[in-house]
């Protein structure tokens, strides 16, 4: 963690808290006033905030702020319903999460209970995650992967193996096709968000490394010191680790920016045998069987 920039962000938060207290600016309040009494006077602040942020386009930004979570940014019924439920919640607590924080800071008792409700809501959602994903899968434009996810078999035979090399962070070179390889591609925004999957991949790595399995973790634009090294330390990884911020290697494996985390199994000929997003316990068994099969081939 960069202490200087963390402190700067903290100071920015203090300034924001002070300004929001004195101005009484509230995004939810602006919307509610517009909806209930058709007054747009407070929306001017919302419009200003939106217009300023639209400035990202001047720096070459090309759309979609969404950061992968269980839905991986896929559109669907859950998007509207999620919005609807939080809309109802905003009216009940008369605040959005930003105002909730400001009111907590102001010492408002009601918001302690709202915060308690927030904790309960998070717990409920965590426990209902799998049935929810199953329920909403038919109503998404692209079903969330991992739940009955498909095994995509992609032939890589037509591409010369020499082009499938990537330097690792410890100055080694990983070349696809020399060994049976298990490749973990970290998601764009949150490499720490799926500990169970990492642990399962690590178990496969440890179990089969002596028999010839090579495990490679590929990160995208993640910072080496702030993200990658803590990640290696947290999971005690002995994998090869590489960075591919420009998607040079990843594109050859058919990975694009929209993909969440992807686990790929490649045979000694450089052919992609299994490739899928997300990683469940069922996938662990499937990958294990396939690795055993591939390693037994002389």
């Amino acid at each position, binding site marked *: 963690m960069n202490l200087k920039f963390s402190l*700067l*962000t*903290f100071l*920015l938060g203090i*300034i*924001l808290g002070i*300004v*929001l*207290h*004195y*101005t009484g*600016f509230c*995004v*939810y309040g602006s919307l509610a006033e517009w*909806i209930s009494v058709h007054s747009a006077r407070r929306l*001017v602040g919302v*419009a200003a*905030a*939106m*217009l300023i*942020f639209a*400035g*990202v386009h001047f720096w070459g*930004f090309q*759309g*979609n*702020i*969404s*950061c992968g979570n269980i839905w991986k940014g896929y559109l669907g019924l*859950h*998007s509207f319903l*999620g*919005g*609807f*439920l*939080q809309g109802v*919640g905003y*009216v*009940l*607590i008369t605040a959005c*999460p*930003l105002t909730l924080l400001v009111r907590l*800071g*102001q*010492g408002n008792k*009601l918001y302690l209970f709202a915060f*308690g*409700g*927030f904790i309960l*809501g*998070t*717990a409920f*959602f*965590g*426990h209902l995650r799998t049935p929810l994903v199953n329920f909403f899968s038919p109503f998404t434009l692209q079903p969330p992967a991992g739940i009955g996810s498909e095994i995509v078999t992609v032939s890589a035979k037509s591409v010369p193996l020499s082009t499938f090399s990537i330097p690792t962070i410890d100055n080694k070179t990983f070349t696809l096709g020399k060994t049976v390889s298990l490749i973990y591609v970290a998601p764009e*925004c*949150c490499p*720490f968000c799926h500990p*169970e999957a990492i642990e399962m991949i690590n178990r496969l790595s440890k179990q089969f490394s002596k028999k010839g399995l090579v495990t490679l973790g590929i990160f995208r*634009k993640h910072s080496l010191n702030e993200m990658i090294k803590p990640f290696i330390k947290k999971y005690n990884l002995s994998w090869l680790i590489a960075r591919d911020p420009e998607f040079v290697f990843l594109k050859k494996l058919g990975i694009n920016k929209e993909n969440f985390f992807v686990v790929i199994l490649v045979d000694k000929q450089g052919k992609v045998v299994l490739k899928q997003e997300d990683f469940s316990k069922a996938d662990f068994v499937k990958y294990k069987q396939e690795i055993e099969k591939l390693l037994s081939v002389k």
Partner: protein
Amino acid sequence: MRIRSSFLLGGVVLGATNLFFYLILSPILFGRPTAIALGGPLATTLAWIENTFLGRNKLFSGIPPILWTLLPGILLGSFIAALISKELSWASFKKKKLGKPQLLRGILGGILVAFGVLLGNGCLIKHLLSGIPGLSAESLIVFLGIVAGIWTTLKIQEKIQR
């Protein structure tokens, strides 16, 4: 002291903070540009706490850096401002007795906000102030859902109060 009708100032500061955070701070803190989001990181952290101590919530793991930097800053900033302007509510904590309906409403509202934020992949701040200007179709759909939710609940409230 409160700068009345200065919603424009509030919006400008919030928008500028968001842009500064996205372009300058988050690439250093997160390793990639990230817009300000509040509900999601808060829920992620709560899930992490539950998972760490009770081992049950398998939603996410890890505390996003925004949670120990920007969010405590907002809490402290509003606390300082309320203290200076003598609007701090703790002083009248005992006098302000809240009824059961209000407390239940607060808890239920909190549950719905957390559930909706996780289902909708982010809160109003993220979708309206960053997602829509960032041309995210998902954010537009979630925002329409939020407006529908606010509109429906306000109408029901109006009918009950009549």
